[in-house]
């Protein structure tokens, strides 16, 4: 797309502000993770570490079983994302394609549900998980995370599914697919950008979540990263550089994952080319 020079400048400035807003804290954390505690407290403040050190990273892996937390987070976020995307895709498809009376009402309700404050669900969720005996197990987090992301994932995918011509599915059904088959063979691949967007949203939501994780899964063996990271904090000390290093360890896998997906989404986008 070509923009007029003036508009392009505006777009660049807006993008720069957004990027700076997002990147500055991340960059600060990154720099802090290479500083010694002494340097952190020095006056005047240094931005780039003077003599960078890796000891913080060593401490991250030595002080706490962070690899276990990483693994737990990966399992919980991965499973909840898969479940969420699967169910949301079906829901989105139903909303978009089937002639359901009160379609718009369903959409509004979805939107309303997604605005529920998490804290209000805490007690009933805790009770439920205790009754099921799921406390401190993966399902205690997988199911709530999947369900919590469903409204937004459904809305995102519904808006993408809407743009796929109806006759493509009709063609698939005549070729021999069931309706669900047409959804998986035709709609989902063509709406891949939407599906990945939904998946990334769900994944990041689950990866970042703290409150539920702390309440429902606090035992060391099932602890996820956000809860795990708080453990680096001593009773009296707050070791900023170590915690920063732990944060970097927590962020990097997500970034890599998103980068890989992005690549696939973009290549998928340019390869197809719907009838113009």
């Amino acid at each position: 797309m070509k923009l007029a020079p003036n508009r392009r400048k505006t777009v660049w400035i807006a993008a720069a502000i957004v990027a700076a807003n997002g990147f500055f804290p991340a960059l600060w954390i990154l720099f802090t993770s290479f500083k010694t505690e002494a340097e952190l407290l020095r006056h005047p403040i240094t931005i780039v570490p003077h003599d960078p050190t890796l000891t913080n990273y060593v401490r991250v892996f030595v002080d706490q079983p962070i690899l276990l937390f990483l693994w737990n987070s990966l399992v919980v976020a991965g499973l909840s994302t898969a479940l969420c995307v699967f169910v949301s895709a079906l829901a989105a498809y139903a909303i978009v394609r089937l002639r359901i009376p009160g379609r718009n009402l369903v959409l509004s309700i979805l939107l309303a549900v997604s605005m529920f404050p998490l804290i209000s669900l805490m007690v009933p969720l805790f009770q439920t998980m205790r009754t099921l005996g799921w406390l401190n197990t993966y399902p205690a987090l997988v199911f709530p995370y999947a369900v919590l992301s469903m409204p937004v994932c459904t809305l995102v995918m519904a808006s993408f599914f809407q743009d796929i011509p109806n006759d493509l599915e009709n063609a698939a059904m005549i070729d021999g697919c069931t309706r669900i088959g047409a959804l998986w063979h035709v709609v989902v691949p063509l709406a891949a950008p939407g599906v990945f967007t939904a998946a990334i949203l769900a994944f990041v939501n689950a990866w970042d979540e703290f409150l539920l994780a702390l309440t429902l899964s606090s035992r060391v063996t099932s602890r996820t990263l956000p809860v795990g990271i708080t453990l680096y904090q001593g009773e009296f000390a707050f070791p900023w550089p170590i915690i920063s290093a732990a944060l970097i360890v927590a962020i990097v896998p997500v970034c890599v994952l998103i980068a890989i997906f992005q690549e696939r989404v973009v290549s998928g986008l340019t390869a197809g080319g719907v009838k113009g």
Partner: protein
Amino acid sequence: MSDVVLKNVVKAYGTTPVIHGVDLHIASGEFCVFVGPSGCGKSTLLRMVAGLEGITDGEISIGGVRVNDLPPRERDIAMVFQDYALYPHKTVFENMAFGLRLRKRPDAEIRRSVGDAAQILQIDHLLDRKPGQLSGGQRQRVAMGRAIVRNPRAFLFDEPLSNLDAQLRSEMRVEINKLHKRLRNTVIYVTHDQVEAMTLADKIVVLSAGRIMQVGTPDEIYNRPAAKFVAGFTGSPPMNFMPCTVGEGGGTIILDGDIRLPVPAARRAVCAAHAGRRLEFGIRPEHVFAEAAGNDVAEVPAQVQLVEPLGSDTLGLLRIGPGEITGRFAPEAALATGSAIRAGIAMNKFHLFAPETGDAIRGPGW
């Protein structure tokens, strides 16, 4: 056997009926064309046969099997859509192979079937491309290829050529005709284009507002229309209509302005039964002549209002009494705008319609 039979088929969206009890028998191997104005329910009818729309009432059977409750994939049909509906993420080969793959056919067979179809349609050099890299005409061919690889009981086409330019359209029309002569599958074909309807069809079904107006061969539809609607829908330019009165004994037809047209002996008996009645007189442009010569040609004074040379022939708008009619003349006919001529009307070719119902009034052999 792959005949398609519709028995009293009704379709309603909510409480709005759009198809009102259609009965139709399409014989095995027949090329059946649905025509009718926009919104008359052609696509709806086709999609009900395909199984893409439910049936509110009635029964559809394909090859003797009642298919009302069968999903599209179990009806053994193939469809070519107006916008082609090719899978954008699959190559041409995979587009065509998809149906066979879903049926778990062996790889070798798939390659052979797709190869054969591609060869017939001259798209074998395009098999590795994605639909986005094809021209409109090529996409059209791929869509046809996808339909023919499966060798289904029936092909359904919904205005398949309407997105092509005039030249390609007539090319593809010929291809489709050849293909049908070769494969001999049952075909149901929806179109707006009269030329397609006339040239392709074994049987034309004229629809209006969810009802069948007439079913017949192209010749019957054109030459023996059962209703004014059908007569006005076929032919380009369409048939001329003028109010008229039938004279005493059926010997004359009197147009407004006291223009008396003598009725040939063979048609008098039927006309006599309507003597004195106000009817609608219909005559096709090719049965209006620039001069009154020959048997059964009535002479009428006319004034030339407009001349439109088309090259192969010339259209002339003539004022006859208070009315106007269009004639199709040989290009060498000397017509000058504003001039007065003695035009001829072929009285062995006229049509009569009841003004209230629009039904045709005709005797045997008209």
